[in-house]
């Protein structure tokens, strides 16, 4: 045991959890912890701190770090506005099950409830969007609380937790001893696999003629991608992966049947629509995937593998629910199937052929025009990185995100990092900085839109100053493009407040001001050389913004309008159909 302050104990606890980098912004009620950090670093601590320019940035960086590394992301902020600025990343992490520990300073215990300067009820504000939170008012409770926080964040279904620590607790002294176990009698995420359910799943798979794996982000959090690959190959069952599941099964694999949902591929949606068995794995039947729930996979039996019991049966009834950690569950299913069919499942030739035909019949399409089309940029950036296994992608939210999902090839988990459930514009740049901190060996490329970029571009400064060089490929169409698309298709072309207004700001000058290298692209033939230059400069340590002027009215297709079904898919060049669907 060592005598130290609560602030020192916070830093020591983070070190004990093996945290190598944390993200944050200091302030009055967390200043003591930053002082402890300073002294720890001066004394040779390996803990690094990345100073974000805004707490929202710090939170998204911690998310990007977590998603790229598979480890818990740590964000630190002061009380009041520091904490409220963290609310968006916390909500984002909650929706996408990203493990996050947020440490926030709080006003002294004696001042709580007095509306003291920069006081806010941190645990109250974040209550609906955390797995758990703690208000710590005693220094000697810090080590056990931080231990518990890390445990809860990364067990069961991953997610964010908040530890709010008063200033007096940071100042007071304690005898430090980091506990070796947690005392959480009410926290018992599933650990075992019910073998009867596995046997039932195996039986259903052997009986199915048109089965599909529908795989979400849980496959990545659950570290079960190898088990899925084995299972899919052994059973010859096609796999669709969601936005958050992208990379959880190799995009280039012959059994990969694309991405389902509102802007997914037509063949992916048709596969789900016509399936007689949907094997859902680590996914929650999000409305952006299902559309009209009653018309989603209408003829299919459902097997649902999910670690969170509350997700099973929430949207769609599962005939075979399997509430268990995915890795052992999928491994047991493989083993069970191997017992019954040692040489592997034959594969449903008709079904696989049908999907292959749909794939040929309904590829992703767009037409070139006078101005650069965003799809061209995505194809170019895909081609420029082809064959490389050291690329990590992040995106903002909107049209560019959907094109990124459609066109990029991700063959490994943790290489596509995007805001799914919350749809947080501005996620891309800070998430890229965090991903880079986790993967210094990788080339981290943020595909961003101009609306998103304006929300968080200041974190380029963080990338530059902390030597975390990233590439931003900016799809600049001058509009809040996804909203514009809806306005064009469903709101009579009334472009209410979506015009970002011409050349202001000058994105290249912005990039330059933040210390990044701008590369401006205005013609199709400039794209490939610009990307090549960006990759070379980035490899030499520069943060680069490839500023691509694109066509403003390009729309993302295919599209299933909100609440519609796979039967209502609008393809490229046929969006008059939107009006029909809307009229119903």
């Amino acid at each position, binding site marked *: 045991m060592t005598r130290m302050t609560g602030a020192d104990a916070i830093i020591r606890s983070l070190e004990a959890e093996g945290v190598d980098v944390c993200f944050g912004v200091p302030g009055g009620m967390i200043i003591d912890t930053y002082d402890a950090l300073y002294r720890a670093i001066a004394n040779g601590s390996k803990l690094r701190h990345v100073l974000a320019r805004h707490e929202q940035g710090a939170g998204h960086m911690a998310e990007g770090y977590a998603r790229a590394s598979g480890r818990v992301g740590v964000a630190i902020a002061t009380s009041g506005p520091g904490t409220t600025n963290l609310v968006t990343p916390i909500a984002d992490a909650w929706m996408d099950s990203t493990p996050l520990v947020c440490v926030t300073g709080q006003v002294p215990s004696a001042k709580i409830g007095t509306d003291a300067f920069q006081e806010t009820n941190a645990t109250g504000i974040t*209550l609906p969007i955390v*797995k758990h*939170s703690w208000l710590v008012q005693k220094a000697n409770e810090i080590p056990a609380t931080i231990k518990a926080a890390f445990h*809860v964040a990364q067990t069961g279904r991953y997610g964010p937790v908040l530890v709010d620590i008063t200033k007096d607790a940071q100042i007071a002294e304690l005898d430090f001893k980091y506990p070796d176990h947690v005392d959480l*009698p*009410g*926290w018992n995420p599933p650990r075992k696999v019910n073998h009867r359910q596995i046997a039932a799943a195996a039986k259903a798979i052997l009986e199915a003629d048109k089965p599909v794996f529908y795989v979400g982000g849980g496959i990545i959090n659950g570290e079960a991608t190898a088990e899925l690959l084995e299972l899919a190959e052994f059973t010859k069952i096609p796999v669709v992966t969601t936005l958050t599941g992208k990379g959880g099964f190799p995009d280039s694999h012959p059994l990969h049947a694309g991405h389902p949902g509102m802007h997914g591929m037509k063949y992916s949606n048709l596969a789900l629509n016509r399936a007689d068995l949907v094997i859902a794995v680590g996914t929650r039947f999000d409305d952006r995937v299902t559309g009209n729930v009653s018309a989603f996979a209408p003829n299919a039996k459902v097997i649902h593998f999910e670690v*969170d019991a*509350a997700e099973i*049966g929430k949207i769609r009834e599962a005939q075979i629910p399997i509430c268990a950690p995915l890795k052992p569950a999928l491994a047991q299913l493989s083993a069970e199937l191997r017992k019954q069919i040692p040489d592997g499942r034959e594969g449903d030739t008709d079904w696989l052929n049908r999907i292959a035909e749909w794939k040929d019949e309904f590829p992703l399409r767009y037409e070139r025009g006078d101005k650069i089309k965003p799809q061209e940029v995505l194809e170019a950036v895909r081609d420029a990185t082809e064959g490389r296994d050291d690329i990590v992608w992040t995106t903002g939210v909107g049209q560019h995100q959907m094109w990124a999902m459609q066109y990029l090839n991700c063959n490994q988990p943790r290489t596509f990092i995007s805001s799914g459930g919350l749809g947080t514009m501005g996620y891309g740049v800070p998430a890229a900085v965090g991903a880079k901190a986790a993967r210094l060996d990788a080339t981290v490329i943020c595909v961003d839109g101009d609306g998103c970029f304006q929300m968080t571009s200041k974190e380029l400064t963080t990338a530059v100053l902390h030597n975390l060089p990233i590439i931003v490929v900016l799809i600049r169409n001058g509009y809040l493009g996804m909203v514009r698309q809806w306005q064009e298709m469903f709101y009579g072309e009334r472009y209410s407040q979506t015009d970002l207004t011409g050349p202001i700001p000058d994105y290249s000058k912005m990039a330059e001001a933040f210390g990044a290298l701008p590369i401006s692209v205005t013609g199709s033939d400039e794209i490939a050389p610009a990307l090549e230059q960006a990759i070379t400069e980035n490899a030499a340590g520069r943060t680069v913004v490839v500023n691509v002027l694109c066509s403003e009215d390009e729309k993302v297709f295919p599209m299933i309008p909100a609440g519609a079904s796979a039967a209502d898919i609008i393809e490229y060049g046929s969006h008059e159909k939107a009006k029909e669907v809307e009229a119903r």
Partner: protein
Amino acid sequence: MKHTLSVLVEDKPGALSRISNLFARRGYNIESLAVGQTEREGVSRITLRVDCAEHSLEQITKQIHKLVNVLRITELIPDEAVEREIALFTVAAPPERRGELMAFADHYGARVSDLGPQEIVFEMVGHPEDLDSFEELVRPYGIKEMVRTGRIGLSRAVRR
């Protein structure tokens, strides 16, 4: 449909708001709520009564179960549980009507816990539905004030 949930929680700040929030976010009102100690130190029992759709209840129950401070959640099924509640009623009782009121009270097992020149405070312990009946009965006399503890319940002994 009304449901009674019995939740065992660690006795920690915020446990109640984490639970009640899951009803509030869906726009469900908690009709009654009782919190108290249990046979185990550091463990409280929350009994709450809500009117919500079956499907939502299943979802809410699972989400409550997931909360870090929650040890167990069960639904109390009317036939399989003993349910009780305490109520106090201040009823207008001019001397000429006291006889009737006292007869009702006697029938329902309500006690007089305070007596004034124009009012009686009745105290009644019983099944919540019996409390409802007594309330209906005395309402025409003028209920000046009323308070109920919220129902509490335990599974029946024979089931254990």
